[in-house]
């Protein structure tokens, strides 16, 4: 018999409930408001008084509303049919919701229970299985969706019955497993899992070593993201965080993208709804939406569900990782999630930490980032979750608590700079402040040597050094004046500008320039390094500027052309001519 309760207090979306029995922390309950059931989560217990955050508007609630507890935490339903879906933070299928407005108390099924799936068994009667073992598969779009033994299955079981090849619904029984004590358990193609618990049934977690190509040059070249790695993008508003994340989601070399729109603008999500079904996925030849799952809790949707949305996204990503897939999880923005935590902490009158955020914010963020990673499955295959979150620092101040906490948890840091955004240098990733810890990993260095070219990381470091020297030269020029510095300063500065304009800046709205494959990036890096290592003769600084502006213009035109096309080749030849005209004395750079 499940616990019941009555509402005794209400402040905004925090309700106090008097209960008649046992209640678990984070247990889900439903508040009955004239027949409408409002979902809520227990967040604090004090004797028979329970505090719960309601995932809906609490307008109209009153002292005496009946509450029913469910005995479980916030869960998602996992199974075939999640691909291409758009869920809210609680995994309601948004397309199944009636009406233009979101009516409170309306909950829709995450999986289509009437859909039939082409099931192929992967085990036989008598086989021994453990949690997360693959017992069958169904085609879900282009993915071989594995049907797994539930992740909570304890110990070793034996298959006593398995459905033959055929079509089944997600709720049909497809296998029976018996454990050592003789307890039988029936398995279907779906299972439920609490979102705040990591899905663990893998053999081990490894250090990331393979690049996850994003097609964004400023990331792939200078601060690469690894498969199974973690990164974050902080930046004041208007710096292009969301445009950058969208660019990554469109071009990243992943099997599956889970996009969590957490407390952000609805029109940005609409952009995904409109574009992804139209855009081609270069990897599969299908549409982008076919490898995408959207979890969407926009800023005006209830704040408690916002907190849930990042966990829902992570759990779905973990489920697909257990199938040996390369999953990319993007969350925009984790600051909104932290703010949701702050609002609740505030209403519960907890003693606040810095900027009124809860004291355990750092731990919560660290635990969440730790759920990403590159894992080895029990059957020897590997799967990964690469997680990139955006952070919206209050006032653009990178010393605020959420940025600080995230910096401790994430391995790659893509700082968006207001100054770059102001001068329309997009993506506004600051080449000097940003870093990727992965460049220090020996396995990463070896991987690049083998897959791109020997000494690649060395070249990347040279680019970084030249950018830094360019910045220093510019500072000197600004302080001392154009005439008062040696000509070399101008050359150093303009060579850094060539790197900036050719490699770092990228037009996310141009069909060709939007995404650059690694081969082309390699080619352009070598081309730019060639320009930067040659010496040119100038009589005065005005010539330097004019010359490099020409070089930059040619490079920009090249970026807009099809790689190795005739026009591309022409521009390349033109570049060579322009350079040869200027080649002469002078000291080589780099």
């Amino acid at each position: 018999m499940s616990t019941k309760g009555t509402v005794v207090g209400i402040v905004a979306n925090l309700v106090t409930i008097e209960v008649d029995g046992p209640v678990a922390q984070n247990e889900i309950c439903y508040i009955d408001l004239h027949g409408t059931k409002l979902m809520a989560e227990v967040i604090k217990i004090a004797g028979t008084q329970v505090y719960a955050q309601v995932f809906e508007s609490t307008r109209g609630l009153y002292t005496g509303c009946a509450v029913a507890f469910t005995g479980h935490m916030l869960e998602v339903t996992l199974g075939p049919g999640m691909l291409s879906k758009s869920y809210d933070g609680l995994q309601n299928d948004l397309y199944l919701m009636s009406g233009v407005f979101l009516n409170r108390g309306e909950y829709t099924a995450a999986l289509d229970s009437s859909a039939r799936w082409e099931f192929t068994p992967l085990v036989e009667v008598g086989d021994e299985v453990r949690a997360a073992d693959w017992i069958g598969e169904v085609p879900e779009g282009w993915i071989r969706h594995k049907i797994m033994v539930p992740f909570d299955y304890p110990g070793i079981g034996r298959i006593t019955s398995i459905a033959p090849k055929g079509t089944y619904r997600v709720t049909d029984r497809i296998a029976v497993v018996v454990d050592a004590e003789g307890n039988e358990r029936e398995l279907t193609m779906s299972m439920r899992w609490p979102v705040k618990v990591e899905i663990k049934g893998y053999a081990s977690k490894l250090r990331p070593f393979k690049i996850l190509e994003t097609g964004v040059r400023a990331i792939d070249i200078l601060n690469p993201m690894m498969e199974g790695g973690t990164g974050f993008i902080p930046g004041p508003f208007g710096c292009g965080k969301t445009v950058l994340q969208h660019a990554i989601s469109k071009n990243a070399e992943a099997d599956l993208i889970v996009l969590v729109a957490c407390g952000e603008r609805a029109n940005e999500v609409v952009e995904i709804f409109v574009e992804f079904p139209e855009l081609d996925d270069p990897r599969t030849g299908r549409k982008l939406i076919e490898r995408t799952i959207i979890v969407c809790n926009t800023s005006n949707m209830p704040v408690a569900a916002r907190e849930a949305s990042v966990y829902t996204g992570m759990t779905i990503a973990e489920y697909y990782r257990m199938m040996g897939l390369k999953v990319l999880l993007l969350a925009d923005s984790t600051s909104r999630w932290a703010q949701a935590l702050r609002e609740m902490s505030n209403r519960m009158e907890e003693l606040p930490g810095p900027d009124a955020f809860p004291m355990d914010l750092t731990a919560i963020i660290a635990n969440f980032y730790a759920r990403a990673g590159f894992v080895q499955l029990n059957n020897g295959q590997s799967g990964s979750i690469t997680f990139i979150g955006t952070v919206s620092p209050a006032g653009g101040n990178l010393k605020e608590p959420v940025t600080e906490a995230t910096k401790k948890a994430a391995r790659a840091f893509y700082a968006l700079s207001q100054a770059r955004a102001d001068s329309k240098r997009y993506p506004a990733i600051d080449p000097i402040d940003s870093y990727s810890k992965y460049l220090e990993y020996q396995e990463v260095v070896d991987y690049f040597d083998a897959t791109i070219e020997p000494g690649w990381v060395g070249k990347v470091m040279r680019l970084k050094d030249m950018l830094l020297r360019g910045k220093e030269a510019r500072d000197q020029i600004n302080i001392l004046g154009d005439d008062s510095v040696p000509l070399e300063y101008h050359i150093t500065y303009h060579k850094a500008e060539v790197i900036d304009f050719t490699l770092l800046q990228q037009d996310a709205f141009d069909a060709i320039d939007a995404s650059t494959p690694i081969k082309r990036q390699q080619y352009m890096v070598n081309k730019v390094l060639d320009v930067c290592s040659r010496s040119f003769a100038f009589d005065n600084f005005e010539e330097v500027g004019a010359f490099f502006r020409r070089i930059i213009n040619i490079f920009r035109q090249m970026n807009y052309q099809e790689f190795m096309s005739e026009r591309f080749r022409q521009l390349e030849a033109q570049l060579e001519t322009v350079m040869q005209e200027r080649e002469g004395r002078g000291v080589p750079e780099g």
Partner: protein
Amino acid sequence: MKARAFQKIYTHIENITKATCTVRADGVHNEEMALVAGRPAQVVKIDRDRITLQVFPGTQGIPTDAEVVFLGRPPVLTVSPDLKGRFFNAYGAPIDNGPAIEGEEREIGGPSVNPVRRKQPSELIATGIAGIDLNNTIVTGQKIPFFADPDQPFNQVMCNVALRARADVIILGGMGMSNDDYLYYRTMFENAGALDRIICFMNTTEDPPVERLLVPDMCLTAAEYFAVEHRAKVLVLLSDMTLYADALSIVSNRMDRIPSKDSMPGSLYSDLAKIYEKAAQFPDGGSITIIAVTTLSGGDITHAIPDNTGYITEGQLYLRRDTDIGKVIIDPFRSLSRLKQLVIGKKTREDHPQVMNACVRLYADAAAAKTKLENGFDLSDYDKRALEFAREYSRELLAIDINIDNDTMLDTAWRLFGKYFTRDEVAIKQELMERYWKE
């Protein structure tokens, strides 16, 4: 919540603060409206039978034995086509001596639009101001504020935008607006013969500040009524959202909430988002566009109010006085319209995106040259040309007093490119150069 057949009157107030009072009562609903000594109030906290009410006009002079009557309903607005042409206070009651509105009562602050039912905004709003149309194009369904210092002429610009926007309905929400500005809007709308499509909810500086909290929801409930039921193109003007946020912090403070940054409530982001996200393009053709004003203190955009606003809205517009030309311009560096990508080069001429970017880049070069000049350095020939360009660009395209169509703006830009720069310096895609370059 059903309205009750009879109303029980409570007369024992236990607690009074400047903005709230607490009374013991049964069967009270969260967010229900009430009258405390005849003053409108709303339930903000329930603790068993202890009900805390936010008294909108303030609690001055309220005795502990004042009558408290619960109205059995949340705040509502009566909607009907007759709203058009009328002026109301923050409670939705007429202030223009006209008759009461007859129609359907709607709860204000209703649910949000299901994101999958929204349409992507794609219709541009032409204002004739190149600082907006060329550099920061606004589309229907967008929400965008002016970040302005109180001395800047944002009301004039907003008024011009509203009148040129060809909206079916214009809803003006005034929060702490000075009576002079209110009269300015009224006169401007009247002179333009636009009164029949104006609806106004006004809280002036003479009215109690907490009442302001109702104004945005009143405006947006009316906006949703026209946009959804009448498929109208609705433009909502909210001025000034900083004063709205100040009212939020007053209430939060009176309720002993722990303040976060800049003494603002921790929920400021969500509170503002609930308002701004009402901007939407609806599937049946109606739309709500919000143009707001957030006044800054000394241009500080790191303050919690503009900062949170910037993360919610789809861009922001800055006004700046350009002393070189002696006019107010729309600052091309800091202003941004996030949705312009949806229309520029698509609904406007193909060269729009590149021309816009080139202009701003060259204008930035001029700014750098100006810094050089101020630091006492010699200018290069390029610097001098950039400065000349900037002056003309500012006068002919950035100033807020211009009114031209989009193609004229682009042609003007090409003329200035040809006048001051070489093709290499402008660095626009070759194909466009060939088509539009003017020597």
